[in-house]
């Protein structure tokens, strides 16, 4: 099975941020705003951490 690790991470971030946004906010507009911010946070933090770990060998 070939799966992109990045794609899986994006999918994970999308699903988790969707559930959290719907749990935390009641209005659809607020849910969308919270979800987008959370999703962006997930992706950007993962991206930055990925690059920070890049020089270190396993």
């Amino acid at each position, binding site marked *: *099975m070939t*799966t992109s*690790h990045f794609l*899986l991470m994006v999918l*994970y971030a999308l699903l988790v941020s969707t*559930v959290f946004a*719907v*749990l935390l906010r009641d209005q*659809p507009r607020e849910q969308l705003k919270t979800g987008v911010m959370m999703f962006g946070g997930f992706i950007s933090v993962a991206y930055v951490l990925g690059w920070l770990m890049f020089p270190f060998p396993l």
Partner: protein
Amino acid sequence: MIECSDRMGTKSTAAERPRASAEPWRLATVCILAWLVPGAGHLLQGRRQKGLIFLVTLPFMFGIGLWLQGRLFPLELSDPLVFLGAIANRGIGIPYIAARMFDAGAGLVTAASYEYGNTFLMTAGLLNFLVILDAFDVALGRK
């Protein structure tokens, strides 16, 4: 002291408001249904939008975990991490029971996606625990 008596005398807090739906049997029904079917607790209480989103996303997440060769952990007290993983897996309710019935979730430790699968499976269950707590709060009239 004045503030305290003021608060007690005139303002009503969430804890003091009447709770039409706080009967124990109803709370238990909401929690059990919310555990068995993700989002059912919200749907039962008229929160259709939230319920439908949970109903779609959480089983989908669980399904992806199975597709990625994740493992459904057994309840083994001898290994605390496996035990905690097992509790997380069971949080999703009927999808977990169905997966067990069809012998899915054996896990393929050599698969590149094995850990991803475990993460998806456990997160789906843990998120459903939060959804159950939210449904409980709605039933109590806190939200």
